């Protein structure tokens, strides 16, 4: 079975935030909720690089390991999802996650955290597929429609890849190989100036 993965090609990412806005607009997220973020290092200096980060849909996900409610679960294809009907907003998953993926909407009484929200790989949630409840709680279900996640689909430089881990790894491997041969490696390079 294919396992769904994201991969952000840092040589391609230009920190345009297109993925972030696509995600927010596509799922009509409240402001303050970042299912996806762009992180820039060395801003304004040589060595500036950016990467787009969301839930990585880990193979053995720490969030699932610590969740006291069993709200988090992993689908056959590796997509990690949360049931907002079961989640109690305790935040353990946020503390367990290496990537800061879980998000918590505010706005309940006394600013209590509501149910956790995170990247669904555009695969909706445990509510019936294409139901109004699914759309409201989890956003679009593009995977069920046979489409790639919105962020990767919108990426202007094709930096963000999403899909079967084996396939996107192949794409990336081919890219790295090309860069190597073109930019710096090879006999012509090694023995020229």
């Amino acid at each position, binding site marked *: 079975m294919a396992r769904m*993965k994201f991969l952000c090609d840092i040589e391609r990412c230009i920190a345009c935030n297109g993925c972030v806005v696509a995600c927010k607009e596509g799922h009509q997220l409240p402001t303050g909720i970042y299912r996806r973020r762009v*992180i820039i290092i060395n801003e304004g200096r040589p060595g500036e690089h950016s990467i787009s980060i969301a839930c990585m849909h880990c*193979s053995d996900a720490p969030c699932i390991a610590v969740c006291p409610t*069993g709200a988090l679960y992993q689908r056959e294809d590796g997509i990690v999802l949360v049931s907002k009907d079961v989640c109690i907003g305790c935040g353990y998953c*946020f*503390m367990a996650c290496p990537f*800061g993926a879980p998000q918590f909407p505010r706005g309940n009484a006394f600013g209590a955290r509501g149910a956790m929200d995170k990247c669904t790989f555009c695969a909706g949630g445990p509510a019936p597929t294409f139901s109004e409840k699914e759309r409201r709680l989890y956003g679009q279900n593009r995977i069920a429609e046979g489409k790639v996640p919105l962020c990767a689909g919108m990426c202007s430089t094709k930096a963000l890849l999403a899909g079967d881990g084996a396939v996107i790894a192949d794409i990336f*491997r081919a890219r790295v190989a090309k860069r*190597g041969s073109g930019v*710096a490696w090879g006999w012509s390079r090694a023995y020229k100036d």
Partner: protein
Amino acid sequence: MKKLAFSLLLIIVPAAVLAAGLLRIPATVSTTEIFRTFNPVITDAWAREGREFITKVNSFKNYYGILLAGLPLVFLVHYVVFGPKKFPESGEKVFYYGAFLRLVHWGAALTMSLLVLSGLAVVFAKFLGGGALVLKLRAVHVGAAFSFVPFGVLLFLLLLKDMLPAPYDLKWFLVLGGYLWRRQRPVPAGKFNAGQKLWFWLGTVGGIVMFYTGYTLYQFKAPVSVLRQYLVIHLSLGLAVFGLFLIHLYMSLLAVKGALRSMISGYKDREEVAYMHPKYYEKLKP
């Protein structure tokens, strides 16, 4: 031990394989290197403490379970084997707890009970099915914490003098408070025995720590590394509180006859004071 294979590895591995081989790019930084520079920024302290944190948090559920199931069992055995502490009725009453103290005590008791119960609901959320019920109980936990504060503070002020540690407290611990004695003998204790003192200090000073860590976890306004530490502290202290809460409950309701009554009326029987709090009893003598 489960092997955690994260997506980051998926990113690094193909690049690393290539970079390690012939395709090392001279004069430019390799993709793998750049990914590595992101690691500390994105995963923060996770690489150091993440796995340990997950193991710890998961183990707490077991500890709480052991206490929840084990302590009542221990109490049952104790009750059957040793029976409750009974004291001959001398008829002479000693005024032991002032009205205000009793009021404060019951306030603290109520809020503490809510705290323990709602806290357990979070720990055993899966058992309760999670969702709206536990979400509400989490709110109760927060509300009870705030309500506990005034009672905790008053309790601290009212009892501080009598709760200061004394040399004989150590002896009390060594004889386990005399609860494993088959016949009545005076135990080394002042107005409050060492067990009560422990419960007091845990409830007040420990309460402050619980409140601070709990509030930070509730607000979520600290670096994730700090949150992780706070959660472990909160769960550890919570475990201790939960244990002592159960013991306190057993002692007052079952193990020591008349204990509950004294906290209602304020009076203890002279005999009970003589056996259970002899150092205080001595002072009472004219």
